């Protein structure tokens, strides 16, 4: 199983070049942190979502894990930081958790595997790439994660969490969450 979570464009995850050094503790820290599931959407890991930005050593040799919140008011931020911290402690690694707000997280950072895991879990992954202001009443075509139909309707721009909108499939009639493109 590969542990380097940098699989899509713009997703610079490993601050230090972990693969070329023999810092096994750092490599293990990256592997451990990468495997921590998101508390709200446990089918994907923090690496899949692109919120794990880097695992590196600072000037003093301490391991620093950098995480970027998805939304300003995301209530899961502290839960995610604590989950990563405790997963590392369980692995015997003492690391500092650092919150990085710049550059801002974008759904473009969700990895290809992450998008597939979301779909398999019943959450439609973001469509297209972020950026650009959309017109009033503009609707993206979102495919139903269950039957694949593109005949879907947006029920609400705001869904069960800040990062999701609520949709309904007009063919199989299933309601589903859509991971917003932002």
């Amino acid at each position, binding site marked *: 199983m590969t542990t380097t979570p940098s699989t899509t464009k713009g997703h610079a995850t490993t601050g230090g070049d972990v693969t070329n050094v023999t810092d096994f503790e750092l490599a293990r820290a990256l592997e451990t942190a990468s495997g921590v599931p998101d508390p709200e959407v446990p089918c994907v890991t923090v690496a899949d979502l692109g919120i794990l930005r880097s695992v590196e050593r600072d000037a003093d040799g301490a391991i620093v894990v950098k995480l970027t919140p998805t939304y300003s*008011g*995301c209530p899961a931020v502290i839960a995610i930081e604590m989950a990563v911290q405790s997963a590392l402690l369980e692995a015997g690694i003492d690391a500092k958790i650092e919150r990085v707000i710049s*550059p*801002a997280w974008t759904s473009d950072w969700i990895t290809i595997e992450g998008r597939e895991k979301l779909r398999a879990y019943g959450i439609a992954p973001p469509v297209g790439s972020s950026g650009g202001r959309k017109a009033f009443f503009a609707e993206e075509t979102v495919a139903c994660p269950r039957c694949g139909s593109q005949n879907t309707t947006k029920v609400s721009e705001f869904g069960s969490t*800040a990062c999701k909108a609520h949709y309904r499939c007009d063919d199989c009639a299933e309601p589903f969450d859509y991971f917003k493109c932002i």
Partner: protein
Amino acid sequence: MASADNTGADIAFPAILEIADDCLILGHRLSEWCGHAPMLEEELALANMGLDLLGQARALYAYAGEIEARGRSEDDLAFLRREREYRNCLLVERRNGDFAATMLRQLYFAAFMQPFWRTIAQTSSDETLRGIAAKAEKEMAYHLRHSGEWVIRMGDGTAESASRMTEAAEELHRYTGELFMASPARVAAIAANLLPDPESLRAEWDQTIATVFDAAKLSLPEIRVMQKGGRDGNHGEDMGHLLAELQFMQRAYPGQSW
């Protein structure tokens, strides 16, 4: 921390506080809708938008506290100041009124904040502010679209919804002028290239509001004198009531935490 050398406590702190107060007070107003929204989807939408604003406020208060360097935390700044020390504009403290008034207030605010954050993200000399702005801009784009769609639906809806929206515009439009007024704190921050001149955002705001009002078949109210005072700490009567609720727990049980 990346603020330019001469823009510390004197310039950056009061300028950032104004924006943080706007976000906190409007976020609090939206939270008052919990359990009262006209339908479940709007319940979620209002709570989500309130959460975005509180998140933005937290980031700004935490940064302002760092810059001030007097040991005040984000909670101290949010909960333990007196009314006159809050520098939010009057628009955000206005009572929620009905759903029409709440959506129109959101539109007025978001139509300003989205280009405001976008400009900060692109041009501010301060790296932390650029980071906060890049995130907030995307969030405000959602608020703008959501509230704009409701203003259009209600303005161009039934006779009842149209009259509610017309009343909301008559009531709230007079508070929009303050968005474009630069306080002394803001003027200094503009000169230091921390924040954009709000006047430079007026054309875009006018255009957005005109587009929505046109689609909503509403006419812009004619306002002779725009209300102001919030940036000087002169608030309306509603603000005291809002703060009584916002601050109650920290005043009654100092230092209380989850």
